[in-house]
Structures are given as structure tokens and as C-alpha cells.
């Protein structure tokens, strides 16, 4: 029975963390082999669980009740696993990518003679374990705890090279910014508990189900005096705070580009499968709760669409290969949020999957290039690597075509479905969604442009430096992960060929739709579609809409690609950014957001201690502000106590008279 081994999926990487931490320095390869064995084991178990879900359906079990309350509402705080199509699929993705990242690390870390490898592999193990724990969580509190662990591990890994200047500060920034969002998440968890008395994801008494029934008026829950829909919107937005932080959505995305300071395999893991994916996964996990709140969905869609466009424009001018990829990640997760907000649960999950493959591929490809370039990441120092490293080139090209959304690579199918869902639901009477759709659509050519700008600058043309002329060769441990992911990036779209089905009138090739419908009753894609507040509208017929949408987005993507080809696929490409004029500076500086945040910080804190207090972050500033306001008001409040007893008598009389008047007049005693 595969489900009994589900905890082992989480525990195996944790075991590798323990081994690497305590015995890593005595082991060959600094604990890498233990990590590979553990994640590969988890991968096999995950596939087994996946197949079992396919044959036997979803599964949920409470493993351990670690606290139970007393009194009227006996709350139970539990650990449990929920294996349904969504989590089973995510398990396979996470374990697969973690395994490949471990293998790749052999080439990127061990072969390059890094020190501190046990610490590195311990961090990877714990990171993977936390993410897997998050994925299998069957209640919001457990999810929150692992969510926090994921954040902690990202801090440890981004700051891996802690002796340099950049990484520790980037790690701190990632930690603080995501923590800022997590405060809202925490309040949201408490709100869910006090509203529903439970935080379970599944079951007749789970909070999404209760929320749905409360909105329908079938049950009453404590909504603190608000209308149920309003209150659920507030709670949903609180939880969304954590999502926005972790999934690097506007305005809490600023940590992610800085996080490139970490080792490249870690970036791959963060971007493709773990940390950033956690946010979107959380929304999908509790999608039934968001589905009852049209406002929350609209906000999610808008944040998503805006982030997709906004981040894509910043990716256009970056010089470092990893920076381009970082902004593309933010942008792609924006698409997923757009899909979730637009009622496209399956579309979002689909894009989450395809993105995991092609983004992991691109990062590992970039890592391979960086090895070859002796850790120079500037694309203007590369060029012409195509012939020197063919495996990297072809796989990277596959990933790029997927990212740009070119037919028939995987990214095309998933991005097209995201935009399609936004379009039809927008046409169906939600004009706001059309705005989000427009932003998503505009981001398509920009994405294609920066992607191929990156490809051409890195691999095409003449080598521009000596290093690029004689790149360091990479070994099997780099090429193998690239090849696996390269194949997946090409074919992963086949699991959900909805457009083909609709246009040709075929039945039964939308495997992902069918797959996600196999869950517990209220967690199916089918159910979400019924609950969601949207209706669909079409241009002409359904097939026409599919064709028009796909043609427009593919056309825009090709346009972006061709512009990049025209500008950069030449022997000696030059910077064209000057043509952007003043916009260039704005884009280079990421719309001055970091500067804006610093500016705010400076204004809110006393001038003398700017440097010091900014280092401690905005949160400490708020705390300090509150405490000094409290102390100040305290020193005012105590002045009431003048020491003269006649004043006391007067104030006492005043207080009593005020009470009498207020209650007498409001209560209507004297009528």
C-alpha cells in the first residue's frame, strides 16, 4: 500500500539532511550521494503514490494530533497527509527536480572544489524535505509551519557563500521580505481557526467546504460581524499575503532577483519546484476557499497579470544571464496567479508543471554556462558557445522555446490555456479580467524577446572574450539532468492538449483535466468550476475562440522572437538599450523599487539611525515605532494623575456624568 510510505517521502530528504550535517565531512562528495539516494528514493515513492492515486483515488490521514484544546470548541492541531491528484503530481515534480539538482550539484559544487559541501547538501536536504512536507500537508497550520521552514532553508542556501558581501544581505532580504508576507499569512491562519474552528483542507468539516456552505447560508460560522463573503475575502487576502511574498508577486517580489546570489542549483530548486512554487500551490490547495470570494479572485488575477507584464519588461535589459531568468520566473508565476484568479485552476496547475520543467532546465543550463565561463555571468562576455557545448545549447534552446511559448513546446500549451481561461471568463461578463488578460498578452512578446536575446547573446555570434573562446568542459553530471529536463520541456505539454481537443472535436486527450477531477469530492477541478463566480463567453464559437486566442499569442511570441533575432542574432551584437532612452535607466533600476523602499525606510526613521535601522528591516521599524508611541502616550496618560485629590474628584464626576449622559441618551432612558 503506497500511501503508508508517504511520510517516508518527506523523511528521506530529512534523513539526508541529518546525515550530511553530522557525517557529511566523513563521506565522499560531502554527503551528495546520500542526498541523491534520498531524493531518488523519494521520487520512486512519489511515483508509486501517483500511480496509486490513479488506481485507488485520493487519500487523507491524520498522523499525529499534537495539541487539542479544551472548552467549547475543542480545536485539534494535527499533522496529516493529503495525497490527491494535485499533491501527488506536485510530489513527483518536486522530487524529480530535487534529484536532478542534486546530481547537477556534483558538477557545479563538487567539481568546482567548493568548501562547506556538507552544509550545502544538508541545506538542500532540509529544503526538499520542508517543501515535500508542505505539499502533503492536510491542514493550513501544518502547511504554514513547513512554509516557514522553506523560508528558513532558502535563507540558509541563498546565503551559502556567507563570507562574500552579496549573499548574506540577499539572504536577509529574502528572509525579511517573505517574512513580511508571512505575518499576514499567520494572522490569516489564526483567522481561519477562529472562524471555522478547523484548518483542514479536506473533509465535510474542512474550512473551504464550511466557507462555501456559510456563503450559501447553510451553516453559520463566526464572521466577527461581517457578511460571510466579505469576511472570507479578508481572510483570503491575509493568507494571500504569504503567497505574494513567497511567489514573489508584486509588490513583494524584490527579494527574488537578489536571491541569484545563491548557488545556481539552489536557484533552480527555488524557482522551479520549491519556494516560489509554494505560494501558487497554496492557493491551488485551498482553491475552494478562494472560489467563494469573487473579490479575492479578481485581486489575485490582477496582481498576477500585472506582475507578469511588469517583471517581463525588467528582464529585457539585464546583463547577467541569471538575472534575466529571475525576472522571467516572477513573470511566469504572475501567469499562474492570473490563471488562478481567472478561475483556471487546471490551467494554473498545468503551467506550474511545465514551468517547473523548463525553468529548472534553463537554470541548470545557465549553471552549465557559468561553469564553462569560470563563473562569469555577464552575457556580453559570452557568445558563440553553441558549437563548444552542444548538449547545453540544444537543451537550453528547448527550454527557451518553451518559455517563449512557441508551438509545440510545453510552455505554449500551458500559457495558452492560462490566457484562454482569462479571455473566456473575461468575455463572460467580468471586464476586469479582460484587463488582466491584456497585460498577460502584452507580456508574451516581451517574454519571447528577452528569452531569445539571452539565447543569442550567450550561444550565437562570435565569442567576445577569451573564456568564451575556450570554455571549460562540463561532465555527464551536468549533461544528464539537462537532457532529462530538455525532453520534458518539449513533451510535457502533451498531457493537456485542450485546444486540439476543442478544435478537432476529439475526446479524452485532456489528461490533466481528467486527472485533477479524481480527487475528493470538493477538491475536484470540476467542483471548482461550479463554485467559481465566472461564466464563459466566446468570440464566435468555442473552437474559434481557441484558434483566435492561440493565434494571437503565438503571433505575438513570434514577433518578439523575430525582433530579438533581428537585433542580436548577428556576429557582433551591440547594445540596443540606448534606443530606449530614459526608459532604459528606469528598467535597469527595476523601476527604482529598491530605491523607493529605501526612501520610505529613510523617511519613517530618524535620520541619524538610517543605516542601522534599515539593516534591521521594515518590521523592526514598525515595532520600534509602536513601542515609542506607546511609551510616549504612556507618559501623557500618567499626567492625568495630578496628585491633587480635588482634581480626582472632578475627573471621577466627569467620567460618571459622561457615562450617564452617553448611555442615557443612546439608551433612550429619558424619553
Amino acid at each position, binding site marked *: 500500500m503506497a500511501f503508508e510510505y508517504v511520510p517516508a517521502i518527506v523523511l528521506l530528504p530529512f534523513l539526508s539532511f541529518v546525515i550530511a550535517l553530522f557525517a557529511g565531512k566523513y563521506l565522499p562528495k560531502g554527503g551528495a550521494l546520500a542526498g541523491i539516494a534520498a531524493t531518488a528514493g523519494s521520487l520512486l515513492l512519489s511515483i508509486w503514490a501517483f500511480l496509486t492515486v490513479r488506481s485507488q483515488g485520493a487519500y487523507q490521514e491524520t498522523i499525529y494530533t499534537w495539541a487539542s484544546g*479544551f472548552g467549547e470548541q475543542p480545536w485539534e492541531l494535527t499533522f496529516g497527509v493529503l495525497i490527491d491528484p494535485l499533491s501527488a503530481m506536485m510530489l513527483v515534480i518536486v522530487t524529480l527536480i530535487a534529484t536532478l539538482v542534486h546530481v547537477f550539484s556534483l558538477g557545479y559544487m563538487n567539481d568546482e572544489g567548493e568548501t562547506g559541501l556538507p552544509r550545502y547538501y544538508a541545506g538542500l536536504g532540509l529544503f526538499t524535505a520542508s517543501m515535500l512536507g508542505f505539499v502533503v500537508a492536510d491542514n493550513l497550520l501544518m502547511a504554514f509551519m513547513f512554509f516557514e521552514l522553506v523560508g528558513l532553508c532558502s535563507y540558509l542556501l541563498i546565503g551559502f557563500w556567507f563570507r562574500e558581501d552579496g549573499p548574506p544581505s540577499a539572504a536577509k532580504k529574502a528572509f525579511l521580505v517573505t517574512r513580511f508576507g508571512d505575518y499576514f499569512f499567520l494572522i490569516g491562519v489564526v483567522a481561519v481557526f477562529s472562524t471555522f474552528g478547523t484548518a483542514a483542507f479536506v473533509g465535510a468539516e474542512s474550512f473551504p467546504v464550511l466557507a462555501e456552505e456559510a456563503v450559501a447560508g447553510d451553516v453559520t460560522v*463566526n464572521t466577527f460581524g461581517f457578511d460571510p463573503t466579505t469576511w472570507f475575502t479578508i481572510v483570503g487576502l491575509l493568507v494571500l499575503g504569504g503567497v505574494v511574498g513567497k511567489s514573489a508577486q508584486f509588490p513583494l517580489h524584490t527579494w527574488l532577483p537578489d536571491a541569484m546570489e545563491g548557488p545556481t542549483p539552489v536557484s533552480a530548486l527555488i524557482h522551479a519546484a520549491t519556494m516560489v512554487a509554494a505560494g501558487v500551490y497554496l492557493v491551488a490547495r485551498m482553491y475552494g476557499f478562494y472560489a467563494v470570494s469573487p473579490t479575492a479572485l479578481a485581486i489575485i488575477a490582477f496582481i498576477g497579470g500585472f506582475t507578469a507584464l511588469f517583471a517581463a519588461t525588467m528582464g529585457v535589459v539585464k546583463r547577467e544571464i541569471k538575472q534575466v531568468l529571475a525576472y522571467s520566473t516572477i513573470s511566469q508565476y504572475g501567469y499562474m496567479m492570473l490563471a488562478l484568479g481567472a478561475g483556471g485552476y487546471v490551467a494554473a496547475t498545468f503551467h506550474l508543471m511545465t514551468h517547473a520543467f523548463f525553468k529548472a532546465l534553463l537554470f541548470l543550463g545557465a549553471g552549465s554556462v557559468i561553469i564553462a565561463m569560470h563563473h562569469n555571468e555577464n552575457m556580453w562576455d559570452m557568445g558563440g558557445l553553441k558549437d563548444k557545448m552542444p548538449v547545453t545549447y540544444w537543451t537550453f534552446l528547448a527550454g527557451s522555446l518553451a518559455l517563449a511559448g512557441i508551438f509545440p513546446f510545453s510552455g505554449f500549451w500551458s500559457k495558452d490555456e492560462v490566457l484562454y481561461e482569462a479571455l473566456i471568463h473575461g468575455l463572460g461578463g467580468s471586464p476586469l479580467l479582460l484587463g488582466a488578460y491584456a497585460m498577460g498578452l502584452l507580456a508574451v512578446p516581451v517574454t519571447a524577446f528577452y528569452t531569445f536575446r539571452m539565447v543569442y547573446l550567450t550561444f550565437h555570434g562570435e565569442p567576445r572574450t577569451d573564456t568564451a573562446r575556450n570554455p571549460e568542459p562540463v561532465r555527464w553530471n551536468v549533461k544528464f539532468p539537462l537532457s532529462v529536463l530538455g525532453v520534458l520541456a518539449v513533451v510535457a505539454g502533451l498531457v493537456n492538449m485542450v485546444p486540439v481537443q476543442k478544435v478537432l472535436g476529439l475526446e479524452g486527450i485532456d489528461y490533466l483535466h481528467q486527472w485533477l477531477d479524481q480527487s475528493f469530492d470538493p477538491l475536484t477541478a470540476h467542483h471548482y468550476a461550479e463554485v467559481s463566480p465566472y461564466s464563459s463567453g466566446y468570440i464566435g464559437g468555442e473552437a474559434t475562440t481557441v484558434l483566435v486566442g492561440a493565434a494571437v499569442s503565438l503571433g505575438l511570441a513570434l514577433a518578439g522572437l523575430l525582433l530579438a533575432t533581428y537585433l542580436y542574432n548577428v556576429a557582433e551584437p551591440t547594445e540596443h538599450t540606448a534606443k530606449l532612452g530614459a526608459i532604459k535607466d528606469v528598467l535597469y533600476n527595476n523601476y527604482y523599487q529598491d530605491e523607493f523602499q529605501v526612501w520610505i525606510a529613510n523617511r519613517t526613521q530618524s535620520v541619524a539611525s538610517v543605516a542601522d535601522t534599515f539593516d534591521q528591516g521594515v518590521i523592526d521599524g514598525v515595532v520600534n515605532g509602536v513601542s515609542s508611541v506607546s*511609551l510616549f502616550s*504612556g507618559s501623557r496618560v*500618567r499626567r492625568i494623575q495630578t496628585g491633587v485629590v480635588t482634581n480626582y474628584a472632578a475627573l*471621577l464626576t*466627569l*467620567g460618571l456624568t459622561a457615562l450617564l449622559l452617553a448611555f442615557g441618551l443612546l*439608551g433612550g432612558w429619558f*424619553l
Partner: protein
Amino acid sequence: MSAVSIVNAAAAAPLQVVLPEWTAIAPVLILALTGLLLLTIDAIWPGRNGNTTFAFVSALGSLAALTVTVWYLVAGTGQVGGSITLFSEAIVVDGMALFFTAIFTSVAALVVVASHDYLAGHENAASYYSLLMFATLGMALMAVSNSLATVFVSLEMASLPSYALVGFLKKNRGSVESSLKYFLIGALSSAVFAFGISLVYAVTGSLLLSEVAAGFDDGVAGFAGVAGIGVLMIAGGFAYKTASVPFHFWAPEAYEGAPAPISAFLSSASKAAGFVVAFRVFSTSFMPLLDATPAIDWALAFAVLAVVTMVLGNFAAATQENVKRMLAYSSIGHAGYALIGLAALTAGGPHNGDVMGAAMAHLLIYGFMNTGAFLFIAMVEYWGVGRTFEDYAGLSTKAPFASLAMAVFMFSLAGLPVFGGFFSKYALFASAVSAGFWWLAAVGAITSALSLYYYSRVVKALWIEQPNGNLDAIDSKPTGLYAAVIFAAVATVLLLPGFPIALETAEAAASALFA
């Protein structure tokens, strides 16, 4: 199922079936006899400095009263088979009365033991101890009052000795000044209180709590103004006794100027006495007014007072330099927490018993931790070290056990989850939330967070800061003070595992009032 309820179930035949009914007020009688005995001893051997004798007799008397109270509480007196009423219902003995009598007598015993050292060398020890006993007697009577007449008389019986006790150090200007302020505000408040009672009598024609409730049952249409002013004035009288805004002005001065054991006594026992009588009067007599037309929404008035009291007490405490005055303000803040027990009541609300029971349990734990904290101050005053936070620096080097106990009191008062104070606050806030008053709980939680700041300042001074050379005066170990402080600390810690029993007893006693 806790130990208490098991015993309750076993004692199917209540104790007072075997004993005569009047024995139900035995704790009150024991306290009265102890006070009289002290006066007799002083009359037989006048002029003899009998500090030790008097302390011994008083301690014995209050412990005897405590023992009998706990025995009754366990045996189910006034709980199994309904409450026991005496003197034409003017007196009632039930679970709540016994619960609070246990608080008063424990605090009195602690204070008596601590006073033995504090009073060494003073004259008039007999009057001190007898006043203390009579004040305790007044509080015990407040707990069993079932008529507005006995409420008023017993409240004065508790207040009058307190005025004298606060001014006991006749040559100390601070003591005299605080006594004057306490007395003047007290006299004003009792006049307001008496006028309030007279208005309620005017509307209902009776002073017995049950008959007052019956008089209000048909609503107050036409008399709402008279009844409303009367009810709010009575609330004012209780606000004075519990040191709640806007009747709190005496408290910071009285607690700061009084001899520290008396501050402990007043801020713990006297406050609890104000609450027990307020709980009984409002839950028995005035519940019908909450949903009458026009409504006299005294619960909302208490909610307003609770919020203002929590905020004012904690904010003012945060900026004090004098530790004793800081504790005085924190004691006002705690009155605000306990007021939630009245503020969160609703007409026929299913959570009324829980809310009031949680407030009672908080007052029990508060009785120990706050008494202990003030007795620690008494010890420092005894050594003559000084009163500010700076003076307390490094005390742990000289008196580690007492400093450890003080740290326990401070963290428990702040509500850190390792001591009894956490559970009582948690139960209080949780019950307020389940009764629908989440905003009261929110204010409580926020002010508790602030309180951690100033409580931890004491711990920091004691344990982290370096002594600044004023500790050489510490040359003796006052045994009685030490014993009292350590005992209070042990009780505070033991009430962590023992809290469910205390809470269950309190909620059972409170629910009986709403049955």
C-alpha cells in the same frame, strides 16, 4: 473530570444537612472571632509589644478560615443542592462566595506572615492585625452578601479598616497622604454608591437581590432614567472598589504610599472583593435590564470601562520609574482584564458562565502573583534599598531566591505561557471571543503585549544589570517575608498544572448564578 467534581459527586448529601445551616458562614465567623480575640489579648496585656503573638493568632485565624472554606468548597456546601441562604436571604453561601473567600483568606494569611517582619519595631501591632482581620471579614461578608443592604454595609466594613491601614505609618508623609486620598475618594464613591442603591430601591421597592431582579422583570418603561442612573452609580461604587477607570484615581497613590504588605492586600484581596460583589449583583439582579425596553446596557458600559482601564493602566505603567507605582498601575490594568467577566455578558448568553468563571480564575491566580510581587517590594523596603528600577539593579546577587520568585511573578503577570497567569488570561480572552467580544480580547492581548515590556524591565534590573553599590544595606534575611514570597511563587507555578481544576470550579460556581 477533575478531582473536585469527583468529590462533589460523591458528596451526594451536602455537609450542611449534617451540620446546622448557620455553619455555612463559619469562615466569616472565624475571621470575626480572630479580630475580637486580638483586641481581647491587647486589652488583657496592654502596652506589651506582642507582634509575634498577634501575627501568630492572625495567621492561625486566617488559615483556619481558609481551611474551612476549602473544605466546604470540596464538600459541596452551597453547590450541591442549591445555595444556602441565611437571615431572610440577606446572606447567601454558594460556590462563588467560597471561591472568593478562599482568595481573601489566602492573601490575608500571606500578608500576615509577611507583616511580621515588616512591622518589627512598630507599636500598635494589635490594631494593625485586628484591622487586617476586620477588613478580611468585610471582604468575606461581601462575598456572601445577597441584598444591597448587606452589600453596602460589608463594602464599608472592608473599606473603613483599609483607610486606617493605608495610613498606618503615621509619621510617614507618603502613607498619610495616600490614606487621605484613598479616604476622600472612597467617601465620595460610597456616597455615589448609596445614592445608586436608593434609586434602585425607588424603582423596585426592595433591596434583596432576587426581589430586585423580580422588580425589573417587567421592564422599566417610565422609570428607565431613574433605574439607569441607579445602576450606573452602583457600577461606579464597584469600579471604586476594583480600582477601575474613572474611579481608580486613589489606587496609584494608595498602593504606592501604603505599607507594602497592605498594598499587596488591597490590590489583590480588596480588588477581588469588589469583583465578587459586582459579579453577584449584576448577574443576579440586573440581567433583565439588558434586553428590556428601553435597555439599560450596563454590559456595554463595563466594556467601555474595561477597554479604558486596560489601556490606561498598562500605558501609564509602562513609563514609571518607581517599581511599586508601576505595580500599582499594572494592578489597574488587571482590573480591566477582570472587567471582561462583566462586559462580555449577554442576556441569556450561553457563554456567560464561562466568561465570568474565567474572570474568577484570573482573580485567583492574580491574588497569588500580585500579592507575591508586592511582598517582594515589601522585602526591598525592609532592606531600605530604594524604590526605582535602578535601585533594583543586581538584587539577584544578594537575594537569588527572592529575585527568582519575583521573575516568576512578573512573567506570570505578563501572561508568558510558562506560569499560571498565561492560562487565566488565555481562558479569559478565549471565552470573550467565543461570547462574541473579540475586540475586548484583542485590546486585552495588545495591552498584555505592552505589559511584557515593563514587567521584563524588573527582571532585567534584577538579573542582568550590575549592582550599583546600594545593596550593602542588605544584612538580614527576613524569614516571614521570604516564606510568604516563596509560597506565593510556588502557588503561581503550581496553578499552571492546577489551572483546569481552578477554572472548572470557577465556571461551575459562575454558571450556578445564571442557572
